[in-house]
């Protein structure tokens, strides 16, 4: 059973259906609002479902961004804070595509290095992290070479 109610399913809809856009599902409940804030631009219509029941996660969140696909930056952000989430692309109220967020091999210019003495915290220069371990997610700064849990990274503002 899909966790995502759509108009065509005609079931009780917990979160407003969108005609076109992107649904991020299976977000751990604790980071739902963070995900919503991070992937929504100033003009985006965003719907948030919080503490929904999920067989897999117990409680989960759903975030729907109307009218657009996620950018590469949005996807990297998601991979950092909710790598187990899934993404559905909605066209005309139907799920056109569904896939897991997944984890890329590297994260570019989306988070600050946790090492205060890292050169990227002192020069105007984009950060770069290589993924060294996937579960739990560990990343290594290409510059200062420190390995840290991805959860410890502070995301840069959009």
């Amino acid at each position, binding site marked *: 059973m899909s966790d995502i109610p759509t108009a065509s399913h005609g079931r009780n809809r917990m979160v407003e259906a969108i005609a076109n856009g992107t649904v991020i599902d299976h977000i751990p409940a604790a980071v739902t609002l963070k995900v919503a804030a991070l992937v929504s631009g100033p003009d985006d219509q965003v719907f948030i479902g919080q503490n929904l029941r999920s067989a897999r996660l117990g409680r989960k969140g759903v975030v729907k961004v109307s009218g657009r696909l996620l950018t590469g930056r949005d996807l990297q952000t998601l991979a950092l804070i909710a790598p187990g989430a899934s993404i559905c692309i909605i066209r005309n109220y139907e799920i056109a595509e569904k896939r897991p967020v997944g984890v890329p091999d590297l994260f570019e210019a989306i988070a600050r290095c946790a090492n205060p003495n890292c*050169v990227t915290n002192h*020069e105007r*220069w984009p950060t770069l992290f290589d993924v060294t371990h996937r579960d739990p997610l560990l990343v290594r*700064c290409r510059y*200062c*070479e420190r390995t840290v849990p991805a959860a410890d990274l502070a995301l840069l503002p959009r």
Partner: protein
Amino acid sequence: MLTAGSHVISISDFSRADLIAVLDRAAAMERNPGRPLDGRLMATLFFEPSTRTRLSFEAAMLKLGGRVIGFSDAASSSAKKGESLSDTIRMVERYADVIVMRHPRDGAARLAAQVSRVPVINGGDGANQHPTQTFLDLYTIAQEFPELRSGDRELVVAFAGDLRYGRTVHSLLHALCHFRVRVLLVAPRGLEMPADHLDHARAAGLQVEVLPDLQTAAERADVLYMTRLQEERFPDPLEFDHIKATYRISAATLAKAQPRLRILHPLPRVHEIATDVDATVHASYFTQAANGIPVRQAVLATVLGA
């Protein structure tokens, strides 16, 4: 890879073959350096002072026939006026054939290497890396113990002192992962080797033992690599005084050491090695420091394709 045009940034960039090639080239430099860098120019960009490292690089370059420009502290550099590191590098790469850089920030050399079209050699970036120090440490060990390269016997290398913040021990540990080595570790509480370095070493197949005291390490080791204890790491001055007394090697404490034991230290030493060790057969730290010249000559000649 370490070849013509390479940057020399981090020990983790180099394979066993790269390390062996540096050792071979350094040995050749000691026998007959020649003047292969005639007419080549090295820029030394020292954003923080390190007289020892700078003089060693400059001597290496000059002895090979090259020339040297540069600055030796940030106060006299354009960084003081707010110029970005990348702009400084973009300027200097147009003057020089090779850049040697020391910088207080971790990762500064990697950033410079991404900008520069001429080779960048890391002369120390914050607490992170100082690869030519590791090359010369390895060269010194290989000189004293041919079995490092041959693998005929497991070499026992003990590290003692500040293993937590000591960048030289972390890098040397990584380099030793390419060889048949047993590692002994002795550190005061709170200054132990960080887990990620230990994990890396064990994953690479090194046997690692943590020992409670320096005496045992000195008696079992082929190589004892000492590091300086820095007072600022100890909040309690009394504790520092106590540890200082414990982490000290003297001729008397070496009475039961194996004759072949060699003691290394990146220098400067303070209290950790008594001066009466200097005259013993075990003292290799001054040879180690002198090895900086042929090793840096080898690195300069290699990256400059000479």
